[in-house]
């Protein structure tokens, strides 16, 4: 068993209303000094040892992310 993390983020040129909303709210809540916020998704997968990196990339690309508007990163982490 391995633990795999996939982070999916809106592409830089694509509007990110969610991150925008957080960024706008922070100063109102009294938190200054945060100049930019982007919000994406974070997946944690438990994966059998025979699942290779290519398969993980395929899962991220075809299913977890929408490559038209999102970028993704796959990382294996220590359990």
């Amino acid at each position, binding site marked *: 068993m391995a633990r795999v993390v996939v982070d999916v983020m809106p592409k830089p040129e694509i509007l990110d*209303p*969610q991150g*925008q*909303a*957080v960024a706008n*709210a922070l100063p*109102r*809540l009294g938190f200054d000094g945060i100049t930019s916020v982007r*919000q994406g998704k974070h997946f944690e997968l438990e994966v059998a040892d025979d699942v290779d990196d290519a398969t993980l990339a395929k899962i991220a690309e075809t299913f977890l992310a929408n490559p038209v508007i999102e970028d993704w990163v796959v990382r294996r982490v220590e359990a």
Partner: protein
Amino acid sequence: MRVGVITFPGTLDDVDAARAVGYAGGEAVKLWHADHDLKDVDAVIVPGGFSYGDYLRCGAIARFAPVMQEVVDAAKKGMPVLGICNGFQILCEAHLLPGALIRNHKLHFVCRDQWLKVENNATAWTSRYDNGAEILVPLKSGEGGYQADQSTLDELEGEGRVVFRYVGENPNGSRNDIAGITSANGRVVGLMPHPEHAIDALTGPTDDGLGMFLSLVDSVVKA
């Protein structure tokens, strides 16, 4: 009887909540999110919608609005407060009610006419109903699954603080089929379904929701 109805940027059902207050014989008073001012109202409704787009988490940003600080203070002194849908989510985020609401179990937004069972008619907002009565009102939400840890659930159930429960198939994965709950003193009520959309049979499935607003008018007159 003055009932405040809050408008946040992204609030949608404020017009409907105000109309319902009027149908019940109360006077609806507009409250603006950015004001530290409750305009001497006798009760407050936090209506449905998508405050601030609900982008981070439903209600997460609205909770910090200036008007909400006033609502929290007033609620602590016993003012009746009703949170409907997004309003319920905001009241949970503001810790006026325990628990939280998460994405519907089937992940879709659900709009449907929903049967509810009234389980507690001792709140400021439900005295017009009989316990055990079933009412039909619209439910329309994407994040209506009520969640709380086991001890909170036990406490709510033990103290009879579940006010409404879904009848039939659970529409959103809510724990214990919970549709609405109340604070320990029965003054603050939050629910996911929309009583303000069921105040006449022309525009709603029934007029079953009107009872909540009539109850409030009763309770304030009594107090």
